Every structure is written in C-alpha cells, then in structure tokens.
C-alpha cells in the first residue's frame, strides 16, 4: 500500500524513500548513542551528587542552566518509544523494497535488523539491554497478537476441524516433547568422550527442554503463513494447533520444572499431570468465556458512550489473559475463548466506528508486537553472555525437531483420516509438517528457567535460538516456493456472496434434517441445537434492543449492502449527478447500463430506495449505524452524531402528540432529517440496468412516506391486532388502536409504513436515541 505512493518508477528510489531510509539510520544511531549517553549522564549525575553535600552549607550559586540534559527522567518511556519507532520504521522500510520482501519473509528481515541493532549497541561498548525478558514478552508483547488472532478467528472452519486440531495440538505436542527429550537424553548419554559435561544432563531437564522446544509458535506461524496465502483448511489447522498447544506446553513446563528439583516423576505425578492438563485447558477456556460474556453484556449498555466501546473489548480480554495467567491456566486459550465468545454479540451492539477502531487497533498492536518480538530475538542473540555452544547438542536438537515433527504429523494424519470426511492428502501433510515453526515463546520459556536447577540453561538457550533461526529462516524462506512448486491450493480471495450465504444455510438445515432422519447425532445436529439455544436465550441477554431477533441472513445482507454502498461511493464518486431537492421515485430516469463489474449494484433506483426504506424502518440497527457512519460517507457534508440526534429529538417532540405505539414517529416532510434522509438515501452511485419486467419497481414518494403495499401491511396488521405488552417482540407491526378516526388511521399507516419500530414504548424512549 505504501508502494503506490512512494514508488514512482520501479527500480529507482524516490527522494522520499531515501529520506525515510536516512531517518531509519539516524534512529538506529541515536538509539545506540543515547545508551552511551545514559551511561555517561548517570555517572555525571553521580559526580554532581557527590559534590552537592559538600556545597550544602555554602550553596554556591552556579549559572542558571539554559539548556540541560536530564535523560534518566524519561529514560524508560523514551527507550520504549524508540524501540517501537524503530520497529514501525522497519516495517515501512520493508515495503519500500518489494524485491527483498518477496523472497525473504518479514520475520527473517526483522531478526536480521535485531542482530544489527544488537551489534551496534555492542560496538558502542554498552551492554545489550535485556529486552527479551519474559515478563515484557508474556505480559506486553504476546497478548495483542493472540487477541487479534482470537477476535478474528474464523469460527466455522475452526469448529469443523476442531477434532483434527486438538489431535495435532495435544497428542502431537506430547509426542514431540517426549521424543525429543528422550532421544536427546540418549544422545547425551551415549556421546563419548569430548563434551563430558553432557553426561551430567539428566532426564528431566531433557524432557523439559523437549517440551519447551516442541511447541509450534503462533507468532511465527502467523508471520510466515500470512504471506503465503494457502487455503483456509491448512491455515486453520496449523494456526489452530499453534494456539491450542499452549495448554500442553504450560502443563508440561510446570510439571517438569517442579519435579526437576525433586529428580523423579512417579505415576501419580503423571496422573496429576493429566488432570492438570484438563484443568489448565478447560479452565483457561472457561475464564475466557466468562470475560467474553461480561464484555458482551457490557456492550449492551454502551449506546450512550460510544467512544469507550473499544476499550471494553481490550480491557476485558487483557483481564481474561491476566486472570488465567494468575491461576497458571492457559492464558492463550483464555484470550482466544474471550475473543471468540464476545465477538458476535459485541459486533451486534457496537457502532460501526467502534468496530473499525477495534479492528485497526488490534491490527496495529499485533503488528507492532510481532515486529518487536522478532527484533528483540535478534538483539537477544547478540547478547553473548547467555550462550554456550555445544555442537552435538545443538545439531541433535535441530535434527530431532524435524524428524519428530514429520513422524508426528504423518502418524497422526493416518489416524485422523479415518474420521474425516475430507481427508488430508500427502501435500497437506507436508505443509503441516513444514509449517511447524518455533518462535519467541520457546525462547522466553527457556529464559525463565532457573539457573540453579538447570545448570545447562545457557546451552538450552543456544539450542533454542538455533532451532528458531533454523525454522524461521530456512523453513520460512522456502515454504513459499514450495507451496508454488507443489501447487497447493491457495486461499479463495473472493468475498462471500449472498448466494453462498443462503445456500450454505439451506444446506445446513438440510443436513440437520437428514441427520435427524437417520437418527445420527452428528455435527449438524449439535450445531443446530447450539444455534437454537443461542437464539432463544443468549442473544436475548446480550444483544440490546431488537437486534437480538435479527436473523443471520438479514444481518449478512445488510452488511453486504453497506459495504457495497461505501465501495461504490469511493469508486464512483465523480460520477454522482446532481442531487435533486425532492426525490420522487416516479421521476427517476433509468441510466445507461454500466460495465460488468458493477453488475451487483444495478438495482433499479426505485428498488434501491425501497431497500433503504425497508432497512431503515425495519432494522433499528440500520438507523443507528446509518447515523453513526454511513450517512457521512454517502453524503458530502459530514454531520456529527450529536447533531442528528438533537434534530431527531426535536422531531420527536413535534410528533409526540400523535400518541401512537411507535417509538420514532415519522418526520414531517420538510424537517432536516427527512431532507438528509432523501439526500443520503439517494444512491446516485448506483447506475441502473434496464429494469426487467418482473422486477417490481416500488414507487415510493418520500415526501409522503407510503407505499402501494401498505394495503398488504394493513392486512398483516389486522391479523396481529392484539397489542402485546411486551415491547421486545422483534420486528412486529403493531396495529393501530381501534378508537381512531379514519383520518388518523391513514396517518398511522403512513407512520407505520415508514418507521415501524416496535421497540420500547414511546414514553420511555422520548429523549433517547434508538436503543442499540
């Protein structure tokens, strides 16, 4: 995306880019220099401090310092900001050099940068800052990435493949850990002669090392897989595995760490370990789900304070992570569960702006975190005092990791394929095995080891770093050409069409029915039951207003319409003809047909207007969202939310005397809101296709909101003429009360037709905007 602005002619750097690269270099130098300065100034401060007591009595007057340097005052935040700035500039820089970033994945480049920075700092004579300490990593750098992954996790493929993913995550990681640990121990034992130190290595530390190194790392997987765009199935398998194996890693790590001091592990300990695994995994998910439901519930009430909506999402998720970590449960699983549980409900409740904010903040934080992690990996590598190279150990580790992974994947796939409908092919297996990248989590876990119990900690760290480098560099760089070579199916880029949505739901119902006929309680049966439960109970609690009744299909259609409207405005803005002041549908002239690409937007103008009307009236949410964002993009002049709300309140007060059941009465035709409605709903961006005969063009004259179909609606109204007391019934048309004159009946119909919002009663909603 940057390339478009900066890349005037390929192959030559424009002045802007050279400037950027200069800035980069300056920042690098500044960082290292400031470290030296920090050292110097602290010593200078010491000197002055020493002098001060002797001068206390005399208090000599020294000249007032016009310019002073006080670095420690801002040292920590300054350094943090400098690192973040460096990371972000690096990211920018890579996109300016597309040749390199096509061959080498970003993660490799970042590690190299980290190495350079570490090297610079070493050259400057300073000590490399301990940037990769476990606390910073686990509490600050990891959560954004996981939250981003969890919030945007594609739930459907994840659930469909859950069995496979769990098999790989749990059984695969266990296999890896024991295989690597055990064989390493054997190698160390039988290793003759030279590095006698290896003989001291006991079984338990080896197993612990095995469990650290065996876990596939979500950060590395994300970083590499994002660039290769493989098909959804493989992506979710590897990625899901990397997320869910956290529970296994946590348990194994704590188990072996505890007992490494004691020296032996009994069967009872093993049993306790299994129990602990269940507790860790399920407990983590439970904690996450609880926080997710809390967040969803909170978002129900945020209609008045839209600005802090994103904050709830972030804070609840972070709290879920911290709470899980507090109890030694799996923080990653808690975070994933929290994000996945809260997303559907929060999305239904928050405004569009908040949705965008959440999306971009998550992407931003996770991107910066990822960059920082890789840079820090590079820096920590240069830090020499934690290294102790041992050829045998390291090479054995690398080889065993590869072998264990391949064997594990092949073996597990053989078992799994017996239960899958769509089997995993050899190509799939290869990609899954090859995609088992290790990353910073392994390094941090190694860093956390206690020196006393694990005298070989340095050797472990060296081996871990080597494995990480190997997987990230070698596997990361070669996976893209391999994917091309093996012709693995790539990701389908096209958006989901309404056809697919309808037919998918159709097939779901069909399959559920067939399963019921066969008496086979399978996948679809339980999914259907869950959906019903969700619709009946959960949505009522967690989604505010009438939105809880909105069928998924309608929500999808609505979203699609919005997206398309925004796109068309962005694309076809120049083609907007002058907007007439009064829009009467009968006056619309059909325009000429547009090229094929606009096919989807070619609804007749009348239809489009009708759709907008219907959407506006029947879906409360629509109005809310239109107010908060879409009118601003569709119409040239931006209106603030507050202005619209105030005007609406004025409107409401004017029509209060109508005394109807409706919450939002119709606006008088000339009110500002109606004018704006006309303007906004005029979809000038849509060009017209010559209307086919059997596409009904509904003529709606906005000046007096009434449609020819109101007759039908009246029938509908008469059918449901019992007024119900409970307001939250969903999108039900209410009948006008009986004791009305014919005149106001007509008015009633007009109002109802236009703005039937059978939400809460008019009384309680007088001064409030629509309930979200």
């Amino acid at each position: 995306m940057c390339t478009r602005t900066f890349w005037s002619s390929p192959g030559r750097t424009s002045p802007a880019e050279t400037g950027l690269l200069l800035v980069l270099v300056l920042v690098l130098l500044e960082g290292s220099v400031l470290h030296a300065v920090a050292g110097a100034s602290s010593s200078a401060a010491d000197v002055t401090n020493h002098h001060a007591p002797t001068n206390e009595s005399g208090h000599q007057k020294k000249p007032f310092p016009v310019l002073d340097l006080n670095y420690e005052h801002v040292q920590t935040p300054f350094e943090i900001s400098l690192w973040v700035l460096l990371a972000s500039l690096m990211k920018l820089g890579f996109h300016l050099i597309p040749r390199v970033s096509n061959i080498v994945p970003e993660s490799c480049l970042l590690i190299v940068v980290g190495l350079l920075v570490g090297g610079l700092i070493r050259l400057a004579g300073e000590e490399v800052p301990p940037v990769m300490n476990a606390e910073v990593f686990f509490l600050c750098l990891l959560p954004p990435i996981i939250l981003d992954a969890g919030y945007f996790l594609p739930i459907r493929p994840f659930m469909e493949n859950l069995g496979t993913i769990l098999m790989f995550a749990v059984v695969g990681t266990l296999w890896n850990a024991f295989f690597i640990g055990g064989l390493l121990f054997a190698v160390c034992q039988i290793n003759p002669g030279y590095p006698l130190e290896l003989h001291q290595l006991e079984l338990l530390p080896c197993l612990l090392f095995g469990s650290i190194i065996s876990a596939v790392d979500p950060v590395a997987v994300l970083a590499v897989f994002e660039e290769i765009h493989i098909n959804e199935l493989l992506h979710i398998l590897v990625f899901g595995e990397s997320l869910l194996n956290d529970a296994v890693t946590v348990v194994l790590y704590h188990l072996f760490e505890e007992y490494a001091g004691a020296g032996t592990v009994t069967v009872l300990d093993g049993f306790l370990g299994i129990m602990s695994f269940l507790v860790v995994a399920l407990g983590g998910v439970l904690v996450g789900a609880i926080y997710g439901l809390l967040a969803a519930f909170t978002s129900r009430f945020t209609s008045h304070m839209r600005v802090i909506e994103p904050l709830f999402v972030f804070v609840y998720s972070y709290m879920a992570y911290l709470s899980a970590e507090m109890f030694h449960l799996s923080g990653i699983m808690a975070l994933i569960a929290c994000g996945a549980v809260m997303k559907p409900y929060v999305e239904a409740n928050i405004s569009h702006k908040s949705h965008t904010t959440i999306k971009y903040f998550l992407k931003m934080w996770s991107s910066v975190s990822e960059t920082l992690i890789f840079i820090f990996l590079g820096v920590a590598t240069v830090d020499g005092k934690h290294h102790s190279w041992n050829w045998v150990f390291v090479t054995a580790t690398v080889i065993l990791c590869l072998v264990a992974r391949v064997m594990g994947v092949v073996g597990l796939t053989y078992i799994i394929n017996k239960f899958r409908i769509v089997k995993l092919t050899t190509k799939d297996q290869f990609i899954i095995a090859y995609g088992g990248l290790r990353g910073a989590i392994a390094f941090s876990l190694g860093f956390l080891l206690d020196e006393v119990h694990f005298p070989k900690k340095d050797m472990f760290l060296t081996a871990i770093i080597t494995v990480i480098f190997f997987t990230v560099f070698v596997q990361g760089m070669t996976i893209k050409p391999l994917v091309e070579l093996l012709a693995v199916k790539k990701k389908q880029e096209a958006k989901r069409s309404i056809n697919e949505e309808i037919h998918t739901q159709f097939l779901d119902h069909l399959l559920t029915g067939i399963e019921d006929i066969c008496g086979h309680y399978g996948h679809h049966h339980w999914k259907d039951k869950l959906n019903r439960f969700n619709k009946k109970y959960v949505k009522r609690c967690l989604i505010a207003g009438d939105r809880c009744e909105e069928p998924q299909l309608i929500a999808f259609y609505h979203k699609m319409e919005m997206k398309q409207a925004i796109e068309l405005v962005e694309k076809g803005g120049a083609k907007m003809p002058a907007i007439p002041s009064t829009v009467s549908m009968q006056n619309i002239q059909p325009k000429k047909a547009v090229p094929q690409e606009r096919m989807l937007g070619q609804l007749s103008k009348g239809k489009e207007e009708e759709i907008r009307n219907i959407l506006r009236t029947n879906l409360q949410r629509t109005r809310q969202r239109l107010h908060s964002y879409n009118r601003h993009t569709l119409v040239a002049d931006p209106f603030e939310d507050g202005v619209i709300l105030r005007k609406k309140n004025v409107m409401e007060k004017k029509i209060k005397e109508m005394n109807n059941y409706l919450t939002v009465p119709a606006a008088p035709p000339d009110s500002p809101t109606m004018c704006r409605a006309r303007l906004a709903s005029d979809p000038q961006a849509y060009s017209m296709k010559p209307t086919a005969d059997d596409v009904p063009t509904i003529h709606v004259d906005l000046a007096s909101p009434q449609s020819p179909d109101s007759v039908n609606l009246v029938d509908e109204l008469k059918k449901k003429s019992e007024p119900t007391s409970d307001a939250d019934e969903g999108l039900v048309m209410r009948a006008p009360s009986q004791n009305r004159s014919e005149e106001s009946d007509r008015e009633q119909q007009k109002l109802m037709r236009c703005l039937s919002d059978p939400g809460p009663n008019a009384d309680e909603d007088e001064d409030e905007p629509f309930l979200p």
Partner: protein
Amino acid sequence: MGSRASTLLREEEIEEIKKETGFSHSQITRLYSRFTSLDKGENGTLSREDFQRIPELAINPLGDRIINAFFPEGEDQVNFRGFMRTLAHFRPIEDNEKNKNAAPSEPLNSRTNKLLFAFRLYDLDRDDKISRDELLQVLRMMVGVNISDEQLGSIADRTIQEADTNGDNSISFNEFMKVLEKVDVEQKMSIRFLH
C-alpha cells in the same frame, strides 16, 4: 427393534443396495434398524406421518421439503430401497472410489448429484429453474415470519441477479452449480455414517 415377521432384510437385498448406493454392509443394517424403528405401521414402508413423528424435523424450516424428497413422484409410501437411495446422496465422496458396478452413470453421491438433490428441494415444480417465487418461499421458511415481504423480495432479487447469467431471471441448475463452486460441497453435504 423387535422381531418383525416378514420384513427382515435378505442378503440379496443388501447386496443390491450396496451396489446401487455404495453403502457398506454394516451401514445398511444400521440404517435398516432405523427404518424399522420409524415404521410404526410395520408394513415395510414409511409414510409421511412416520417422518413427521420425528420431533426435530418439525422445527426444521425445511422439514416438509426434506420429507417430500424421499417420496418419488406422486407416491405416498417409500420402501427401504427408496429410503437408502435418497440417503445415498449424503455419503461422503471417496477419492479412490472406483465405480465397481461399471454403470455408465455417476454414483449417487457425486458432487453433481448432491447439488442436484439440493436444487430439487428449491425447485418444487420441477421445471429445472429456481424462480423468484420459489426462492422467496425458501427464504421465508428460513428467515421466519418477522421480516417483511418487500425485504425478502429485495434479497431474492439480489440473489437472482448475482447468479443469473443468461438473463431469464431465474436460477438454472448450471448457474446454481457455478455459484456454489467455491463452497466445499463434498464436506457440507456429507454425513459421516459410522462404519
């Protein structure tokens, strides 16, 4: 369940069904016991009422249509062969499945036949096209009663617009297949009948 005098499944029948549908022996016997448990009248055939007695089908929006799909044109009873023939559409597709019976036609559970089955559920009047009305009916069933007709109409129009390539304002089987080419029909329309 329980012993039935004249409706036990004979080996030859099992073999025939196996050839025709591709189910395995154990699957056929399992489904046969399900068939007999549904068959309250004990006459070897199922009627519509037998199906409607299944509680979950009653709340399924497509329940009636699915039941109708089992019964051949104009008939009110379906025997075990017919039952299995319909269910055969939902057998998972095996990659290495060779056509053992050497029949020129495709096996019942091929992708095309699966889609054809689904298509026929939309297309009630069997004119090989999904018209706007038929689509509206299905949408209405899936969405419930609370959405207005116009809204459903717009959705239906848009759906037809997206799919229709020859401009006849209805969706033919080829257009239907094209629209679903990205959807993993083999997985979505298969039930794992346990061995």
